[in-house]
């Protein structure tokens, strides 16, 4: 759904290099060394992140992060690296944790050049990943920007030693907020957490516009196919499904939405899409994209009913949403081009799956657009500051609406957009009965 609420793929050694060399790369001879691109990519992202910049200046004025130990556990790529640098610029001691399969070496190098402690090794073993995670927790972060609640959960179990110094956690992803709420309900949670994910400036943008554009584009980039005239089945019409359907329709696709929720289905109908059952929809599908956030939403049984050559991609929660093991046996064939594997149904169709069922936009592309992550990461920074300021009780808290509004306003201001304020009479009218 977003940059960080899903596992990154671990592409086999044989498959992934082709992405860069065979198809995507363009000027091998003229490329500078990796570290140069790291800085360049980081700065290019940074200049399209006005909300993060504004949040940084707001937090700097408060001075609350100065001298704090802050842990940042996010996919290590140019956008999140900007958050790490912003926090470091506030006088905090920043430690960054990156996962083995999503870390970009050139970004690590660029961060280390700035003196930021980075715990990440691209392609390392699970054991080494755990060592790195423990070393990251050893820095005893007081404030933690967590990814899927992976670190805060470890600090409630094997690493309770680091819990005492932890002031609070900002969790941005759906998949991280869910376990935190379970912990809260079971009285197992021992630290205040902010559910950044639930902020309007996150949900309404990241999940709709960010994922919509990037999932559709990553499918087209991976396949080199046209969208015009394609029958696209969008499974699930939540925020992500809405965005995917809109982007595919914008490019000329014919959309069918499938849903289990009657209200969402009715919204899709009002938005002008065909709404039908999945089992029948897949029979004429050129592209099927799941956006349910729920495992087993699309199965081998559906694949067997698809036309030969159909494309399957996941745009929601990632691995599991498409379950190739439920239903008739599928033969997992070759990777026919980078990020495209053929799935063969014996005596049935050959279908192609994008990024082996990992989220298409982060696995077969660069993830959400920079400007969308600008909002999400600005919220993240403001959430860390809020945790440092507010002395919140243990529990899962929403970000105050005024912070939400301030982040949205900062991106509007950067775009030179001015909006109205209610007149006194409007205010009166709104408050009268």
């Amino acid at each position, binding site marked *: 759904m977003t940059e960080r609420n899903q596992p990154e793929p671990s592409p086999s050694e044989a498959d992934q290099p082709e992405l860069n060399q065979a198809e995507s790369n*363009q000027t091998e001879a003229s490329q500078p060394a990796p570290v140069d691109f790291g800085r360049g990519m980081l700065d290019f992202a940074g200049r399209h992140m006005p909300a993060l910049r504004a949040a940084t200046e707001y937090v700097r004025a408060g001075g609350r992060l100065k001298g704090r130990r802050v842990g940042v556990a996010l996919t290590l790529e140019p956008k999140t690296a900007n958050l790490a640098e912003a926090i470091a610029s506030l006088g905090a001691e920043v430690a960054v944790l990156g996962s083995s399969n999503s870390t970009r070496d050139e970004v690590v190098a660029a961060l280390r050049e700035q003196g930021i402690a980075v715990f990440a090794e691209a392609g390392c073993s699970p054991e080494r990943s755990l060592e790195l995670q423990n070393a990251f927790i050893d820095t005893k972060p007081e404030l933690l920007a967590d990814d899927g609640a992976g670190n805060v959960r470890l600090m409630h179990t094997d690493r309770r030693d680091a819990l005492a110094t932890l002031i609070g956690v900002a969790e941005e992803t759906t998949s991280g907020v869910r376990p935190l709420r379970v912990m809260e309900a079971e009285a197992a949670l021992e630290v205040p957490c902010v559910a950044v994910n639930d902020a309007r400036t996150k949900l309404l943008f990241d999940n709709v516009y960010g994922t919509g*554009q990037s999932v559709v584009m990553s499918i087209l980039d991976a*396949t080199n196919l046209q969208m015009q005239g394609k029958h696209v089945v969008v499974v699930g019409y939540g925020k992500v499904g809405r965005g995917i359907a809109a982007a595919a329709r914008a490019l000329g696709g014919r959309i069918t939405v499938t849903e289990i929720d009657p209200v969402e289905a009715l919204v899709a109908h009002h938005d002008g899409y065909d709404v039908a059952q999945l089992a029948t929809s897949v029979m004429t599908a050129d592209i099927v994209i799941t956006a349910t956030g729920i495992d087993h939403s699309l199965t081998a049984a559906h694949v067997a009913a698809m036309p030969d050559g159909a494309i399957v991609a996941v745009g929601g929660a990632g691995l599991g949403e498409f379950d190739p093991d439920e239903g008739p046996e599928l033969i997992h064939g070759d990777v026919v081009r980078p990020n495209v594997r053929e799935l063969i149904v014996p005596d049935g169709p050959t279908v192609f799956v994008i990024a082996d069922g990992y989220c298409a936009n982060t696995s077969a592309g660069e993830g959400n657009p920079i400007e969308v992550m600008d909002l999400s990461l600005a919220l993240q920074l403001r959430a860390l500051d809020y945790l440092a300021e507010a002395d919140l009780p243990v529990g899962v808290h929403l970000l105050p609406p005024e912070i939400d509004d301030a982040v949205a306003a900062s991106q509007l201001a950067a775009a030179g957009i001015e909006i109205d304020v209610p007149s006194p009479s409007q205010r009166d009218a709104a408050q009268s009965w």
Partner: protein
Amino acid sequence: MTKKATSSAANMASSKATDEQISQARERSRIADPSQAESGHQAIEWARRSSPVLDTFVRAKLSDGALTGRRVAVVVHLEAKTAFLATVLADAGATVVAAGSNPWSTRDNVAAALVERGIEVHSTRGSTNEMWEADLIRVADCDPEFIIDDGAELTIRMARDRPEAYQRLLGVSEETTTGVARLTELQRLGRLPMPTVAANDAACKHLFDNRYGTGQSTVQAILALTNLRMSGKRVVVVGYGWVGRGVATYCHQLGARVTAVEVDPIRALEAYTDGHQVSDLETALGSADFVITATGGIRALTARHFDALTEGTIMANVGHHDHEIDTPALRAESSEITEIRPGVTAYTRNGITTYVLAEGALVNIAGGLGHPTEIMDLSFSVQALGCHYLASTDLEPGVHAFPPELDRAIASAKLASRGITIEKLGDDQSDTLSEILDADTFESWGTKP
């Protein structure tokens, strides 16, 4: 999870080339890296899968032997779809030699795969202009009888540098608006001694390729190169021909606010009526996030416009020429030039930093995978049948239209491949003039059997 035993790439490499043809191709070709052939075969096979018209309808048309033994030069952006066209021509018995129509657009793996299929190739990705020109001359020296050209790049070089071989040419089928204009100019100058086909002007080419193909792939390439968002962007499209229309449409539909810049008042009015803003370039540049040139000419964005560029503007070109954005002039005036992401070069001039994508070469091809495959299926079907038409028809020298019946046949084949049926006009649905003239009264119109 059983792994399929056989490599599909091995099957797809099966061609009709003899060992001798293959060894000759290896000997004579200039490519970057023969070891990349495997992924090239895969890419060509992927193109084949989504090219039903070329793979069935066109193959059948070419099987009459008209191209058997003919020397055909294919000088089009040398990537997987073009390579598939080359193999279809070779499978029909032609002796094909291929080169790229631009120094930046060749895919080295595809070039390697073609050589393994016995097709001579002269092209490497990112070659210098001198190397690229030399490649074209090597193709000319193969003494082609027919050219499938892009931008008339080989045709005009043969006219200039290989006049004798140029005289021997039997026909040229031309891919682009720019190239057709060049051929027409050659004809006007009395320097077009052979028949040519304006493949670009076929409905199945420009209505789809130039508009939808370039539109989608340009938006895709710009977003992939920059990782930016389209919604809310102010996009300036310079040139509102078929390409400009397509680019403007997709930017708009993805949420951008588009300003069109035109020199032609009718096209400008069309852009306005399509709902875009229209203005002169200098005004438009003042608030541009992306500037996309699509004029098909040169120096659409040049030194006199640079002062109007604002901080952070990102420039990309989708027209035929690499210098539609005048990067040499920008380079000359810039104090600092850095490639900051792959395919994104920052130019700092008078303290203002702007960006050029893919060095100003066609952004969708040099910075992306080019047009969608299904679109090129149509374009290359026109090209292959254009070449076949030239080889099987006695035509006067000059620029000829692509036969409309072939145009319709291609569209029908494409519709059929999608299982789409269309309506037939009934005998009683036509309104003939004689019927009106002979009608006794208004009421009796159309009532005659």
